């Protein structure tokens, strides 16, 4: 096949149209490239691992304050009792230590607040030691801060998954509805173009963009935060390709009949926002009640993110991520099948 013939193939021309519409829309570039980096950088910095946190507490007598200052993890302020009360109520200190009439110490703190409980432990330990307590067994600390267990390691696979979902649903969905609204879809099916080429061009274009969709947040995570890539790279690529197909089929289904951008946006948000929350992009989906866990596990974004995390962080291969691949495959078959039945060209 000569070069000219190849370029004049309908599928090539349709894919070129996808590409031109994308690169000539500056906002599309921003949302798909800059935004994921900005989000990862912002969250990576906000949730970076800090040195062990120093807890602010208050003591109402100089003697208590001095005893408490022996503990390096406590930041002790000496305050008059009324002011100390006000500080603890407004959360400026985690605990207030006061002497009681019988010589004991009163700790005022909120026991539902982890900081309060931790401050209670540290404060009591400092005061007991200052009063001469000897620990029967000495403990030596060995600190582990390994890549793979930090928040950013958890976050990057979530962002990659969210990006694949968003781009695959929005890209075809928006273009198809826009073309239908402008009667361009109707005009194109009035030509001899084989209809499947039109739909196929979206997939070809997504596959061309996939290295960018995935590579941008992944490269950023690896280069800037040193996140690990412990699993098979081929399994990682295969997971991303399967997910792109499944979500694109979802975008196709959403766009199969809708005539306005507003209605399409609504449907897309309706399908994507619950997954942003439930599928563990920003925090573990294990936090939701056991009752809804089967539902969460069946969501395509959960399957994708779980597979990405297993691959990148735990080094899982094809065999371990097979259940997630099955979930994605099921979504692909169901969405594509329904879309083919429901799709309207006008």
């Amino acid at each position, binding site marked *: 096949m000569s070069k000219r013939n190849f370029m*004049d*193939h*309908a599928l*090539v*021309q*349709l894919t*070129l*149209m996808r590409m*031109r*519409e994308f690169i*000539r*829309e500056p906002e599309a570039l921003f949302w798909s490239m800059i935004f994921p980096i900005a989000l990862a950088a912002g969250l990576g910095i906000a949730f970076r691992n800090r040195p062990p946190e120093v807890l602010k507490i208050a003591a109402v007598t100089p003697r208590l304050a001095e005893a408490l200052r022996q503990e390096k993890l406590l930041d002790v302020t000496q305050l008059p009792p009324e002011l100390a009360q006000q500080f603890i109520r407004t959360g400026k200190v985690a605990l207030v230590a006061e002497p009681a009439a019988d010589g004991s110490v009163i700790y005022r703190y909120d026991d539902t607040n982890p900081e309060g409980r931790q401050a209670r432990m540290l404060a009591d330990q400092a005061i007991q030691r200052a009063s001469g307590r000897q620990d029967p067994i000495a403990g030596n600390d060995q600190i582990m801060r390994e890549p793979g267990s930090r928040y950013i390691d958890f976050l990057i696979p979530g962002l990659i998954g969210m990006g694949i979902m968003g781009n695959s649903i929005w890209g075809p969905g928006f273009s198809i509805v826009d*073309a239908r609204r*402008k*009667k*361009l879809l*109707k*005009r*194109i*099916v*009035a*030509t*001899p*173009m084989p209809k499947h080429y039109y739909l196929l061009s979206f997939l070809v274009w997504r596959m061309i963009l996939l290295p960018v969709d995935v590579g941008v947040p992944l490269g950023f995570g690896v280069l800037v935060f040193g996140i690990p890539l412990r699993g098979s790279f081929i399994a990682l690529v295969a997971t991303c390709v399967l997910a792109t197909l499944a979500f694109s089929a979802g975008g196709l289904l959403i766009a199969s009949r809708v005539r306005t951008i507003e209605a399409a946006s609504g449907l897309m948000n309706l399908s994507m926002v619950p997954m942003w929350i439930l599928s563990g992009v920003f925090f573990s989906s294990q936090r939701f009640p056991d009752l809804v866990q089967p539902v969460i596990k069946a969501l395509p974004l959960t399957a994708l993110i779980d597979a990405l995390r297993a691959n990148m962080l735990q080094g899982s291969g094809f065999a371990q991520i097979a259940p997630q691949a099955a979930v994605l495959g099921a979504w692909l078959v169901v969405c594509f099948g329904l879309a083919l039945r429901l799709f309207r060209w*006008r």
Partner: protein
Amino acid sequence: MPGPTPVSSPQAALRVRNLRKTYKDVVAVDGLDLEIRSGECFGLLGPNGAGKTTTIEICEGLTEADSGEVDVLGLRWSSDAPTLRQKLGIQLQETQLAEKLTVSETLRLFRSFFHQGPGAEEAIRVVQLEEKRDARVGSLSGGQKQRLALACALVGDPDLLFLDEPTTGLDPQARRQLWDLIEEFKAAGRTILLTTHYMDEAEKLCDRVAIMDHGKTIAQGTPRELIASIGVEHVVEFSAGNTAVDLSGIRAMAGVRDVRTENGNVLLQVTELHKAVPGLLDELTRQAVPLTELRTHSATLEDVFVHLTGRHLRDE
């Protein structure tokens, strides 16, 4: 690919028999018959809502008829759709082409759908968009967009061209430019079916016209035949300001076929202008009615439509 199955005489490019299409409870096309000969420009003329677009879209294979027969170039949509698609050039009403593509990119895209036909550059030349070949579609004027839509219909070197309201919404200069293009297609021997609600467009471009109303053709023939069929060659229109005119005196004049009033003006359909105008002036002088306006025009397809339906084409 299956070979074409001839089902009608070779000279008929399009043959429609007893076509019906109903949307919910609206009858869009109601037993329509048409025959378009190879090489002619045929016009479907009618007001908005007459069923023109539904008819042309059924012929284009975009809408399915409830009943009736449609033979296009001797082929049927049910059995020969892929072959037919290669042979037709289609311009739809209100298509917005991709705004971010350039003129030449758009044409190359459409050309890629067809087995054969002129290249994108050739199509650009035909519709005289050379200066705009690298301009984005979004930056084109209405007339330029419409010419690009025509070029998209031409890239497959079609045997039959469907144009649905090709000049609706264009300014007079852009309309005239588009007419010139369509005249060129005619001169090149292309078969064209166009719809319009402009009677001047139909008169200028079409070899034959079918006047449509409420999903039916109410008259069919050359523009000249149709105008002659109402037995009226001229229309005289006058206004007498606020003065009352005795119309019975005017009706009694020789050569006057019909008299009616419209927006305070009086319209006479007459056969012989050179006798009717002096007669009218005499009659008005006799009635002592002051004449504030007097116009005459030769009968048009508009007058045919009014004669047949009592309404104007552009009545909304």
